[in-house]
Structure formats: C-alpha cells, structure tokens
C-alpha cells in the first residue's frame, strides 16, 4: 500500500509577523486522533506474536503512530483483539471495552476474532467472532495475519477516522461497500 504524506487539513495564510490557520475544528480533531491511536495490549493467542512482530523493528508500526501500546484500557484508543475469544474470556473483553474512554475503536485480528476461524466447528467453548461481544470496526483475515495486514488494518482505521465517520457509518460502510468503497476512500483521503 502506498504511504501518502500526512497533510494537515487546513491552509496557512501568511501574514506579517506570523500566519493565520484556517481549518475546520472537526477535521483537525480527526487528524490528531487518527495519528495517535494507542492500542491496548490485548493478545490472547497466536495473533499476539504477529502483533509483537508488527511492533518490532522490521515492521515498526510506530511509523504510523501506533507504538504507544498501553496495558490499561483507560489509556488506549483502539483494542486489537489478537486471538481467540472463548466463553470465559468474553465477559472480560466486554468489561475492557466498557472501561475504554470514547472515542474507541476495535480491530478484530485474525480468523478467530473474526468468525471463530479454525475453531468454528466442533468446539463447545469458542465465541464465533468477537462481534458477538463488542462492535468491531475493522476485520483482518488470516491465521494469523501477517504484520503488514495488521498495519494495513490500522491504516484503514486511520483513513476512516480522517473521513470523520461515526462508528455506525464505518460499520455500514464496511458491510455495504466492502473493498471497492475502501479503495475509493483511499483515493480521496
């Protein structure tokens, strides 16, 4: 994916002795929010290792502003569900989500968090997709997804935040438009 320079949403009019910045408050807020997404350290199984890979030097997600991984939900903006959610863990996940401050976003990383994945059939304890418990903004396919896929998901989330979309809009967009809508958004953003 092409990495575009992150333009500030506004124009500066030079005046003697300084300048006047003209912008929309909402756009500035969204711009700031999307570039400092702090993920919650929430890894239940294999995907957590790929999440660690994404944080390490080769992939280095701090290039895009995700490096401040927090251990407490109260300080984080995005929860990356890295791994399977089982029935015993589901209430804990809900509680973590409730403890996060708004605005909050959720990424379901990997097949297990998306749909139950390899544990969809013949199991008695796996939640078939984390969206049964909390609302999910971006889904990542893979078992486990490559670190690039995770970074792509986080950048997709960034694009959506920059578009100024609400959670409901993001979700309906994901459902209806799918990939085509996303690419269009990328072109615009």
């Amino acid at each position, binding site marked *: 994916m092409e990495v575009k320079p992150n333009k500030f949403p506004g124009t500066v009019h030079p005046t003697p002795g300084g300048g006047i910045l003209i912008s929309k408050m909402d756009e500035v807020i969204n711009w700031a929010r999307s570039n400092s997404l702090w993920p919650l350290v929430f890894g239940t*199984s*294999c995907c957590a290792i790929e999440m*660690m890979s994404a944080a*390490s*030097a080769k992939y280095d997600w701090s290039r895009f502003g995700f490096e401040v991984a927090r251990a407490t939900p109260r300080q984080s903006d995005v929860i990356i569900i890295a791994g*399977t959610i089982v029935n*015993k863990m589901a209430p804990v996940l809900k509680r973590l989500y409730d403890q996060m401050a708004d605005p909050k976003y959720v990424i379901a990383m990997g097949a297990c968090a998306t749909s139950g994945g390899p*544990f969809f059939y013949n199991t008695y304890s796996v939640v078939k997709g984390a969206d049964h418990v909390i609302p999910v903004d971006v889904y990542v396919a893979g078992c486990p997804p490559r670190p690039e896929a995770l970074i792509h998901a986080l950048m997709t989330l960034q694009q959506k935040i920059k578009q100024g979309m609400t959670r409901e809009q993001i979700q309906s967009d994901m459902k209806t438009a799918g990939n085509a809508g996303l690419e269009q958004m990328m072109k615009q953003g």
Partner: protein
Amino acid sequence: MYRETEVIQTIPGTDEMVLNIGPQHPATHGVLHLVITLNGEIIKKVEPHLGYIHRSIEKMCESLSYRQFIYSTSRMDYLSSHINNHACALCVEQGLEVEIPRRAQYIRVIMDELTRIASHCLWWGAMAMDVGALTPFFLAFREREMINDIMEETCGARLTMNYMVPGGVMFDLHPNFVGRVKHFIAHFKSKIDEYDELVTGNIIFQNRLKNIGVLRPEDAISYGCSGPTARASGVSCDLRKHMPYEIYPELQFEEVLDNGGDSFARYLVRLTELRQSMHILEQLIDDIPEGDFQAKTKAVLKLPKGEYYQPIETARGEFGVYIVSDGSTTPYRIKFRSPGFSNLSVLDHISRGQKIGDLVAIMGSLDLVIPDIDR
C-alpha cells in the same frame, strides 16, 4: 474467600490480602489469571486460574481425520508449532508403521531446531522485558524475523506452519533454504555473544534473578516439570537424548544442565540451548540427503485399534500426544500432555515467600505459553 470481581480484597482478621493479576495483564504473557495471597510484599500463595483461552482442541480433534488434526496443534504452543506438528506426525506414523525417508527426517530435525531457536529468541526478549529492559525485545525479534522468513519461503507461513504431515513433510525445501540457513547461522553466532554481553552480564539483571524462585530437583520431578525448567534444577530430562526420535541419536550435542535451580539458572540453560541448537544445525545443513521428502501413504489414514503415545522435546519441555484409536478414520480420543501445564503448576511452590515484584521474573523464567496450558 474472595470474589473474582474485586481486584484487591483483604482477609478479615489477618494482615493478608488477595490480589488478582490478569486475565488482562501484560506480564502474564497472555490471559492467565493469578489469584495471589499477600502478606505485605511477601507472596503467601499463588493460585492460577485457567480456561480463558480453552478452545477445546482435544475434543475438536476427535472429529477430524488423522491428516487434519495436526493443524490445530500448531495453535496450541504457537512458538514451537513445528515441534507440535512433529509429535502428532510421529504418533500417527507409529500406528501406520511407515518408514520415513531420510531426507524428510533431516528436514524435520532442521525445522525443529530452527523453531527452538526462534522460540528461545522470543523468550529471551520477553524475559528481559519482564524485568524491565525493552531493547532486548527488538534485538530478539531481529533474529526471529530471519527465521520467520526462512520458514515462510519453505512452508508458506510465518507462524503456524502445518509443515509436518504423516509420512514426512508437506513440500520439498525451497532452493534458497540451505543458503539462507547458513547465512542465519553465521549471523546468529555473533549475536548470541551480543546477547550475553548486553543482558547476561548485567548486574541488575543478575540481582533480579539469582536465588529467586529456587526449584529443587525433587520438586521438579514430583511436579512433572520438563524441558529447560527441570534441566536448570539438574534433572536430566532431554527427550532428544533419553527417548531419541528421528536422527537425533546420530547427532553430536550436549544436554544442557545446571544445578542452580533459580531463575538465573533457567535463563542460562535456555541461552546455552540456543548454542546447542546452532551446533545441531551446523551438523545437518551441509549434507541433507537427496531423495523423497514424503513416504507414500494412503489418502485416507486409518490407525489400527489401540493406543499410541509419542513424547517429544519442544522448546518448553515434554510434549506428548496420546491417541486412542478404534480403527476408524478419526481418533477416538486424543490427549495432549503439554509442558506448560506442569511447569505452571510449580509456580505456587517456588514463588511462596518471594516478593511480589519477583513473581513476574519467575513467570518469565518458566516460559509459559497460555494456549499451550489451556488447550
């Protein structure tokens, strides 16, 4: 005595209090829940609560065929997924009584040792992070990514490979494989010394680990510990030596033992194992025999009626696969003996009387993988 909903509670009439760590806690390496009884800073009791990542893999395997069930074991101990697959493949082969081609045996052992190095690398980074050093994590992942690239080229996946199949391995080696492994060996040799220089000799690191969490040999045996955890207490339990499989009897390597029994001894054993694995790789990589990479097996596998058990030495200890077959295409019952479960059970014993700050270091030195424990 305590309610799980409250994080900290005091026990009436005593100075003791109950503290919940996890299931969401970065130091538990996953979703382990520890209920700790404390008197001031001294740990009185540690009670691990399991099941937060119980995915019913054993039950699931009963409805999968002998070729299919292997993939689910890569998701158990995902840091040594090759070795888990290897154990399953060996157990099925035991029932099928097939001869494994020599090339496949070489490939399997090379993959096992690469996995062991990758696993110990990650452990080293996480261990240093547990005691407060962040840089080793990035250094360890530098080497780990090299192994991941090698795996990806040959097996098609970075983490959950599913490369071992009954009868051999799924694909032949990639043409670049030998060259890249040699390059890795040359690269990693200098890096282990860097590891030693950076962390092992560090006086703060040593003070955090020495004489902390001492595990006596008799306790290691009675709790069923295995792998580096038991070997650091002087218990000789390397299955590659004691119950050799594949071509391990022909290889020159030493079983790493240490008599310290404390966290630092466990650290040293794992670090020395890295060197031993490199030594094994050096012996194998130059003369991988030509030939088939997979024995001819039937499309649908059926194991004769009976019971089969195959233990194998993973990066964490003894991993056993126990299959009960009723002669049909799916196993009647599968039981996995995971090293993490036994190694976790000793946590209560060795951390009693220690300070709460040292608990994280003790857990780090045990090298727990939670999905391996819960299955």
